[in-house]
């Protein structure tokens, strides 16, 4: 047992930190810090900076243009970028599709699509969820029928995050109704500009059109866009979900959120003294900090085992549950901390560069939207209820 990082790991951390100091645009980190909205261009700018350094795809092997980091290095990179308020890396192409193509895609698909993910030619989105399916992903109803060298796709996807920015979508589609629901699913790459595709934004309770519905009406997709074999898509989907689970705990986000909360609690006054000196509020911050200290170590245990080649089991479900609960608690405390200025709901103030300044202190404007938006953390990616059932079954063997 040793809680210390190796000298190599410390050197890597210093390198990342130096890079961020030099290359992360202040304009972007300011937006992230204040919780303002990032535009498509903001993300693309940051992706390009990372790609230039070869750090955009930390989890990809070097042969595909990735950094080839192990789990500990990825963890360090994550810690440093969140601490520096760097924009997050949009995961759909890099964390989700990339690994699937590398494992199951044809040589041609790899050579064509992977570089386009890195250089920003394509913005991918995810076509997994369907209306009414909830956590039961295998109940795919969107169909793809073979017609010559095309598939004809009909159906609907939903909860498609940032679909409004995407020009490509990877989809689970049903190519057969035989056998178990898992058996007739295929994995298809679809151009969002194809005729027959409609994107409809879903406004969430924080006022954000972050997710979308995507409708497919006789969309013709070249058969060459099928990944792997027909009807084997469920295997690839599960592989993708496993990859999505890395950094499921969100320790970096939690740390950044906690630091922000403490900063606010020092600035806000209550009873003529800084809020952080209120013993009951300070105790609530302390409770979540203590939980986070432990969770971060659980995360390191999993990361360290992953770096040593072990596949995480129900631990990632535990991290998902605890990680989301902690982040949501930090969001809730932040909303309380900013006091009455959590009430104003002026969407424009969250756009940087508009004339609409914040109503109260700038740190207050995103508190309520973030609190509301992050209720999703315990719902998506396999709801916390699904995770608990997994934990019970795996560990209790129930």
């Amino acid at each position, binding site marked *: 047992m040793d809680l210390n990082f190796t000298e190599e790991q410390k050197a890597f951390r210093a390198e990342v930190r130096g890079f961020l100091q030099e290359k992360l645009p202040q304009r972007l980190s300011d937006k992230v810090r204040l919780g303002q909205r990032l535009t498509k261009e903001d993300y693309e700018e940051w992706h390009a900076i990372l790609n230039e350094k070869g750090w955009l795809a930390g989890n990809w092997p070097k042969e595909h243009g990735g950094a080839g980091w192990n789990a500990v290095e990825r963890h360090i990179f994550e810690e440093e970028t969140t601490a520096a308020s760097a924009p997050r890396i949009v995961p759909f192409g890099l964390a989700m599709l990339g690994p699937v193509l590398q494992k199951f895609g044809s040589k041609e698909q790899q050579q064509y699509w992977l570089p386009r993910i890195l250089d920003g030619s394509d913005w991918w989105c995810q076509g997994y969820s369907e209306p009414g399916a909830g956590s039961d992903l295998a109940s795919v109803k969107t169909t793809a029928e073979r017609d010559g060298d095309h598939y004809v796709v009909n159906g609907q996807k939903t909860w498609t995050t940032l679909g409004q920015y995407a020009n490509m979508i990877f989809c689970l589609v049903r190519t057969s109704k035989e056998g178990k629901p898992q058996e007739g699913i295929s994995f298809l790459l679809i151009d969002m500009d194809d005729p027959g595709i409609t994107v409809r934004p879903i406004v969430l309770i924080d006022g954000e059109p972050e997710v979308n519905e995507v409708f497919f009406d006789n969309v013709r997709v070249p058969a060459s866009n099928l990944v792997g074999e027909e009807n084997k898509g469920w295997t690839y989907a599960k592989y993708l979900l496993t990859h999505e689970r890395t950094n499921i705990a969100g320790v970096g986000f939690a740390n950044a959120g906690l630091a922000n909360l403490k900063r606010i609690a020092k600035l806000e006054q*209550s009873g003529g003294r800084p809020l952080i000196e209120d*013993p009951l*509020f300070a105790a609530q911050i302390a409770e979540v900090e203590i939980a986070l200290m432990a969770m971060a170590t659980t995360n390191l245990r999993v990361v360290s085992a992953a770096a040593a080649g072990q596949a995480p089991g129900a631990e990632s479900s535990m991290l998902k549950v605890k990680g989301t609960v902690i982040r949501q608690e930090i969001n809730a405390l932040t909303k309380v901390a900013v006091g*009455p200025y959590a009430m104003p709901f002026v969407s424009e103030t969250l756009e940087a560069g508009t004339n609409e300044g914040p*109503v109260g202190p700038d740190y207050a404007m995103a508190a309520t939207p973030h609190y509301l938006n992050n*209720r999703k953390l315990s*719902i998506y990616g396999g*709801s916390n209820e699904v995770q608990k059932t997994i934990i019970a079954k795996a560990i209790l063997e129930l």
Partner: protein
Amino acid sequence: MNFQLTEERQMLQDGLRRYLGDAVTPEALKAAESTGFSPEVWAGLSEMGVAGALFTEEQGGFGGLGFDLMTVFEELGRAGAPDPMLEVLLAGGIIAALGSESQQALVEQAVEGGVQLAFAHNEPSSRYDIDRIETRAERSGEGWSLTGRKSVVVNGAQADHVVVSVRTSGAPGEREGISLFLMPKGTDGVEIRDYPLSQGGHAAEMVFDGATLPADALLGEDGAAYDAIETAQARATAALCADALGAMETARALTGDYLKTRKQFGQPIGKFQALQHRAADMLIEIEQARSAVINLCGHLEADRDTREIHVSATKHLVGKVARLVAEEAIQMHGGIGMTEEYELGRFARRLSMLDQRFGDATWHLGRFVRLRAA
């Protein structure tokens, strides 16, 4: 001891529930987004004379007791009505308590319906302390000149008359030296920024830069307004908690319906025992909240210390339960509960903002401890 509504209150409740069930339409809500209230619903409430229930007969109303407030505001919350009735209670209550005969006319107008009121009291650094007022009024000729800033004044831009609290002597944190003025809409020297609120409705930042008010704008005695503000805020807190109770009832009804109809893995999700038990927990806590609201409403007319102990006990408990209900209702719905299109969202937001007015759950827990120790 009796926990039945009187016949009159039962009629009021039934009438309100029926009316609001019809009137709070998506269109009415849409209208309220830009203007801060729904002109149609507001007119309807005026026609029903609902504001009369907030005031005693002496004040020109037909109610005014704690359980009258509970009856009205539980229904407003249940419907998620976007109209500033709470501000009528708050500002109107102060005017009724302190106003001169001519100022009292406003209360009558409020009861008759239609007049919009606001109470400009909060300041950027006052948080939830009633006495931490820095805005100053100084004598200027025959009248007064006001300087300072009021923050998150609910309905501030819409109100025909705004009750403004100021300091005429003393320092922030002192109870002595706080005074009140009655300011008509459009008074010069007041800069107003109007904006929407998460829970619905609008509020305003109000900057006073030498705004001048006549001598007869003073409400009550110079420097002695604290008690009236505390009393009015106690009543408004009871009303707000009743509002939250109503919103919780709707959230639980929506959740119950969803659990019964939504199917997953081949059966209604309400058949899953884990969700059943969590729904039961939610119900148990809502019952606690209802009792807490009853406790506060039943002690609004008690002596100050008893009343304030119940203010803090109830605001703490209802605040905790509101968070639980909002979060659990969303969670049990899953993704659909996160969408603006579905009805739950606005109730969840309304509940989420309960903490932000008159003190959050933790703040009131600390206050309860201090009041008990005193």
